[in-house]
């Protein structure tokens, strides 16, 4: 291809058709860089990093899938869910139950778990079907507690406090073990789910979600059945949470009800806000930021303990984490409500015309 045919960034807004507005890649360079990025992700990253780093990447990947789902709900439809921690748990348990009792292979049980989670989510979404405003938030708060209770008490199915152990995922007699194998699986899923989400927003469904977020009355006036679309957004969002939960279950091999609490829900909300509400790539930034913050905090507390500044029992990790997440949410809302995605956009656009800026 001759360089003449390549599209460069125009020095202004010369868009003539709506389709140009909807394009994901402004220029072919974007596509090229994405291709290079994906190649590097699969070709270089798993081979040069230590297993512990790959474990962190995998955690980020799983969180990113759940956060993309939550962002479709919060960022694009304007509804808050405080129950995504529990929905993540539903996905994990659904996958575990399918894998142990029905001997489902992982490539069936993960999507099935996601569908089950979507249905469970929609049960708690139905109250919002009748109501405007933020009733969905309250209904999902109830969902969080009810699901936590069911997961703990339905012992014949979930084994209660004992937890469940999953078999190793296998495809055609080849077992996926170790962080590296999971790295490929998780990031392939993440790319697929990101691709789906980015394109969903460009369809009539995505436009309807955005219309509901911006002004529900106007949306209804234009003939969008808002309650049906809200429920759909909620279903899709829980589908993502369930998918991520199922991946988490396979990755961590044994699961208990412990991690799926309200603070996990708040953690996901923090990722959405920090990454940028209404921005799919932002969700990935948010997942990276919060997981990174977690690791830094862990490293810092260990450092302080080794230095003897605080006693080994003097500083508890959990409250410090909670405080930092809260602080991060608050600071981002006040100073950069559009999140890291906006920061990234500003940085990029200031480099775009470098060294010949306007």
């Amino acid at each position, binding site marked *: 291809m001759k360089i003449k045919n390549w599209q460069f960034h125009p020095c202004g807004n010369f868009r003539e058709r709506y389709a140009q507005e909807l394009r994901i890649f402004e220029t072919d360079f974007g596509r090229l860089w994405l291709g290079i990025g994906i190649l590097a992700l699969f070709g270089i990253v798993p081979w040069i990093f230590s297993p512990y780093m790959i474990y962190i990447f995998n955690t980020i990947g799983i969180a990113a899938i759940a956060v993309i789902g939550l962002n479709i709900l919060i960022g694009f439809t304007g509804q808050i869910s405080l129950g995504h921690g529990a929905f993540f748990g539903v996905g994990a348990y659904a996958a575990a139950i399918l894998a142990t009792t029905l001997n489902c292979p992982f490539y069936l049980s993960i999507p099935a778990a996601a569908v089950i989670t979507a249905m469970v989510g929609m049960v708690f979404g139905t109250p919002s079907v009748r109501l405007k405003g933020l009733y969905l938030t309250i209904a999902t708060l*109830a969902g969080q*507690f009810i699901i936590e209770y069911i997961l703990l008490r339905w012992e014949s199915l979930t084994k209660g406090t004992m937890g469940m152990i999953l078999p190793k995922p296998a495809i055609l007699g080849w077992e996926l073990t170790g962080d590296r194998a999971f790295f490929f699986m998780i990031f392939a899923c993440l790319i697929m789910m990101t691709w789906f989400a980015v394109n969903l927003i460009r369809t009539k469904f995505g436009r309807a979600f955005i219309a509901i977020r911006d002004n529900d009355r106007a949306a209804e006036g234009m003939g969008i059945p808002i309650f049906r679309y809200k429920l759909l957004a909620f279903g899709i969002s829980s589908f993502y949470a369930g998918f991520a939960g199922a991946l988490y279950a396979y990755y961590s091999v044994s699961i208990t009800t412990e991690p799926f609490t309200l603070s996990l829900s708040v953690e996901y909300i923090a990722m959405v806000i920090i990454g940028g509400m209404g921005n799919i790539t932002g969700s990935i930034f948010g997942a990276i930021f919060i997981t990174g913050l977690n690791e830094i905090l862990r490293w810092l507390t260990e450092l302080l303990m080794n230095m003897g500044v605080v006693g080994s029992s003097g500083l508890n990790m959990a409250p410090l984490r909670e405080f930092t997440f*809260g602080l991060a949410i608050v600071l981002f809302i006040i100073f950069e409500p559009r999140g890291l995605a906006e920061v990234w956009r500003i940085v990029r656009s200031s480099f775009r015309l470098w060294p010949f800026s306007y």
Partner: protein
Amino acid sequence: MDFFIQLLVNGISIGFLYGLSAMGFVMIFKSSSVLNFAHGELLAFGASLFLALITWAQLPLPAAFLATLAGCFALGFLIERVFLRPLIGEPLIFVIMLTVGLAAMFKGLLLLVWGGNLHTFPDFLPEAMGIDWGIVHVAPVYVAALVIGLIFLSLFGLFFKYSSQGIYMRSVADNQRAALSLGVHVKRVFALSWAIAALVAGMSGIVLGIINGVNVHDLSAIGLKVFPVVILGGLDSIGGAIIGGLIIGLLETFTGGYISPGLRDVVPYLVLVVILLVKPYGLFGLKEIERV
């Protein structure tokens, strides 16, 4: 029968406390239609401050009580000034997310200071305040809660109905922009409503602390239990908060007593889902009717 009556009395007492805690929540919702997810942390802040004042600073009780109320009032004012003022005019979703963030922040901070253990107040209410009618026994603290609750209920009723500030608050809740353009001092309204809500929350925190002891986890959980209460009573009705609290309290104690103690903490949320499905505006809430 004795068991039943004891459960009934317990339920009413606990329910009244829920109602009292919910009042501050309704106050904020009524004036700014913000769901305050940090309400439990405000309760915990009040209780911890009181605890610090009487155990560390060794203040006499009335002084400690008044100082706590003043501290909570100041905290509410500060929250508004530092965190919420930059968000005036922003979409509501940001403000609600902010309270989620504030909740995590305060909870972490209180846990860092106090730890997750249970602290108890020294017993100071006179035994004579308690009610003892044969089989029915009401502890003094519940009587105190009842008295405080009734005083504040009537005060708030009068405040919202007759005082100009109360009417401003209602106008801001209804439509922030319209209120702004009609010359209502929205900032002052917010500051005042957060300060009053924090004050009420702090007081409920003290009462709850006397009964159950001060535990940050428990108190912030009560802050979330406010949601079933206010949804049942109607989100913007202060009287409804008390009635809702009573119903939820009774339901909790009866399930705990007759069915299973484990189900006790989940029942309010089950009720919440049912209410949202059947009667979403609650018993006394304002119905919003919109036609397109």
